[in-house]
């Protein structure tokens, strides 16, 4: 009789322990999803802004049409990469970021573009979206690190696979991001 009570108690304790681990992992995974959703909102906003910018500058730019083509292509790639997973998406978005940088650099050479209020507004909106993406990416990567640590450390690792928790990818910053030459986009 007493033996049964002890066994029952052990089962209950183990069950509570496993429930605790499971709930903790679900919480972390939800934070990762939420952080990714936040990035996606901003990526979408950037994708929507780019055609406006391209249209606004198209008429002024004579020789650098290939810069505009590069931006448009990079945007199309980034939009379609949305369905291919975080790693592919990050790569396409980084490509888009660098083409945008070269577009902004070219805009600097056109005084009439730099004086165009519409272009300035679009440039400011793209700059802020860009910054929001990079801050959200930091946040997302931090939540991914926390979640991956959660599913790979003992004892969680025993149950993580069982419950279908799989490792998530980081939204990688561009390799050279830490020392990019600072293109001055300030409007002052």
């Amino acid at each position: 009789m007493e033996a049964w009570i002890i066994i029952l108690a052990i089962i209950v304790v183990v069950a509570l322990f496993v429930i605790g681990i499971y709930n903790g992992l679900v919480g972390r995974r939800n934070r990762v999803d939420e952080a990714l959703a936040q990035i996606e909102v901003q990526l979408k906003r950037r994708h929507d802004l780019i055609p406006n910018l391209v249209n606004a500058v198209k008429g002024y730019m004579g020789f650098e049409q290939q810069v505009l083509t590069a931006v448009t292509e990079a945007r199309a790639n980034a939009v379609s990469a949305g369905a291919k997973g975080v790693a592919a998406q990050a790569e396409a978005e980084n490509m888009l970021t660098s083409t945008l940088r070269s577009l902004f650099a070219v805009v600097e050479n056109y005084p009439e573009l730099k004086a165009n209020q519409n272009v300035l507004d679009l440039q400011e909106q793209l700059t802020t979206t860009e910054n929001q993406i990079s801050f959200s990416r930091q946040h997302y990567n931090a939540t991914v690190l926390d979640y991956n640590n959660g599913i790979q450390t003992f004892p969680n690792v025993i149950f993580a696979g069982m419950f279908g928790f799989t490792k998530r990818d980081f939204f990688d910053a561009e390799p050279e991001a830490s020392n990019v030459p600072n293109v001055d986009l300030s409007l002052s």
Partner: protein
Amino acid sequence: MAEQTFYAQQSANRRNSVLLALIVVALLAVLGFTIGFALTGDPVGAAITTGIAVFVGFLVSVGSYFGGDRLVLAASGAKPVDETTAPQLINVVREMTIAANVPMPNVYLIDDTAPNAFATGRDPEHASVAITTGLLQKLDREELQGVIGHELSHVRNLDIRFALLVGVMVGSVALLSDFFLRFTFWGGGGRRSRDRDGGGGLQAVMFVLALVLAILAPIAARLVQLAVSRQREYLADASSVELTRNPAGLERALAKIATDQEVLEVANRATQHLYFTNPIKKFEERSTSMFATHPAIVDRINRLRVLTGERPLDPHDVAALADLT
């Protein structure tokens, strides 16, 4: 590590806010009792003034906790702005809220050419950030990011709550002391002699004590205000750089503000500790003294330069400071 400093700072601010509220009540009680005894000459009268002082102190504390931010904003002439009226400012604030992981605060502009900024509120959900039009005009985007990062660090660390209560403490202690000093000066003493003779000696002692307290208490209260705010400024600068990952922006912003000659007209002694840099410029010149609410700007710049491994500036080298801008 950074996470730990920020959580530690948050809980320290929660604890210190409660502690400070208790100290304010105790200080007001002592002041109220001695002043009451000095004026009426009997313990019942003293008990009544003590009660009034504590009650008023309590009311003012609760009032400032819930409405102090609106009061400070109104006193500074701050006007709310949104995407249409100040798009770049709102954008920069939104970027930094993502980095600091705090809700979007209310954003205000103060119509003043002196570049400065402050944050206020009781917690991150009820926070406001105000900057002057001078700051918006004189700083570029990266510099603005540094300043907003600094202000949002105050919000995230709950420095804003503590600063509100500090303002109340300094204000109410000064108010009570002023009241007593003026009262005795304008012939409060005449009524004393009409009172019963009992306790005359004690009353005289209390009178002197009240006089001394009325003079010393506001000074002591100000020293607390000053000491607690300087350390926070260094921490908020470091947190700002951690958020923007761009020490150069904040460094340039500080250098620009240090070399700016304008004086912020809307700031006063009760609100000066809230600002990004000390708004009362004359004071700033000898700000290494005990009476400064802010560290000298050169000190702040040098702490940032140490972070990035650059050579610190000579505090007396004005040209080097101007070169940074």
